[in-house]
């Protein structure tokens, strides 16, 4: 089931204004209900649930696993629809997105060397970090190899929301990547906030290994070298659901810069994935490739 009712309503002439009036709480409720139905009747959803359960069957009791599977499916749905919610619920974001640890970011910025927020790739709602912080007045730069289409981003997040954040994308070409890294260095030198989500690989340096459920994957160490060059404080940042069914962006205290930075981040990341596996989006590849891990 690739399209939610709220998305259909918002794209149907005559119903858009009605869809815009839906309170976020109802959006979340409706998402949970539709996921429950989808899990019963839609083979694609059921397949994703089975993979998640197959990987984590030994880790949780059946009741807990069932609840986590539901949260996992809700998270997948919300991840797709979050921009719709964002684009249409002007002024209500405080109802459904909380920030914890913003004081760490403020203190880091006071040092004058900018701040790096680092999230896990394919995990949680990290794509909300830049728009949320931009709305709170931070100058945010999102680094990565996607998001090159500015028009598409504007249509998703809204023109106004993009004033304070931009995407530092790279095309894969060597010199273009160097330009992107230089842009990140310049943004940090101007005391900006840079948000990145380093990719993981199934081979790499043991210092960058993230462990989860007996498996490992390895972080791209280059990002940590870049931040070492820039001497900017690095703050882990994760966005997951909370017990009140809101989304919580958690900003951690800065990591110590040096050879152990990647290791320290990998440990925090590992802790999140172990405690909240339902916010991961790599379970299919974990399941399919599990012989290789």
């Amino acid at each position: 089931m690739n399209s939610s009712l709220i998305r259909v309503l918002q794209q149907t002439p005559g119903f858009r204004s009605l869809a815009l009036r839906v309170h976020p709480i109802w959006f979340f409720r409706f998402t949970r209900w539709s996921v429950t139905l989808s899990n019963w009747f839609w083979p694609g959803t059921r397949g994703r649930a089975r993979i998640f359960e197959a990987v984590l069957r030994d880790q949780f009791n059946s009741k807990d696993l069932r609840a986590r599977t539901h949260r996992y499916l809700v998270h997948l749905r919300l991840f797709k629809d979050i921009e719709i919610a964002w684009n249409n619920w002007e002024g209500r974001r405080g109802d459904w997105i909380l920030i914890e640890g913003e004081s760490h970011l403020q203190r880091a910025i006071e040092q004058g060397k900018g701040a790096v927020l680092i999230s896990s790739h394919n995990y949680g709602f990290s794509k909300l970090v830049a728009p949320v912080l931009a709305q709170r007045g931070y100058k945010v730069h999102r680094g990565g190899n996607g998001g090159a289409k500015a028009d598409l981003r504007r249509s998703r997040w809204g023109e106004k929301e993009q004033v304070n954040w931009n995407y530092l994308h790279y095309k894969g070409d060597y010199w273009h990547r160097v330009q992107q890294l230089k842009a990140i260095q310049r943004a940090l030198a101007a005391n900006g906030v840079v948000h990145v989500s380093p990719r993981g690989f199934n081979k790499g340096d043991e210092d960058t290994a993230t462990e989860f459920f007996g498996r490992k994957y390895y972080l791209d160490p280059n990002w940590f070298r870049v931040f070492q060059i820039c001497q900017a404080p690095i703050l882990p940042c994760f966005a997951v659901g909370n017990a009140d069914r809101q989304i919580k962006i958690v900003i951690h205290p800065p990591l110590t810069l040096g050879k152990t930075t990647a290791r320290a981040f990998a440990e925090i990341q590992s802790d999140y994935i172990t405690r909240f596996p339902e916010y991961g989006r790599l379970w299919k590849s974990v399941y399919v490739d599990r012989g290789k891990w």
Partner: protein
Amino acid sequence: MVRQIEKQVAALVARILGDPPAPANSSNGPLLLGSAGGFDSTKTLELIVAVEQEFGIVIDDDEISPDNLGSTENLVRFIILKQGV
């Protein structure tokens, strides 16, 4: 002046690559930088930041290209140009 810049660039390259400084003269030929010289993009960034600090110049995005940074010879020429020496 040019000789001095060549020496400084050679020292920076050696520091970042971790090799002993190689003379940037015509008998040995210029060192290749960028991907052709075995620099990954992070090392090239490190070199750019070091060059900016050492020579007091600002390197813009559109100046980051093999024409300016593809070899020590190109880099020296670029620094001279930026400094207006």
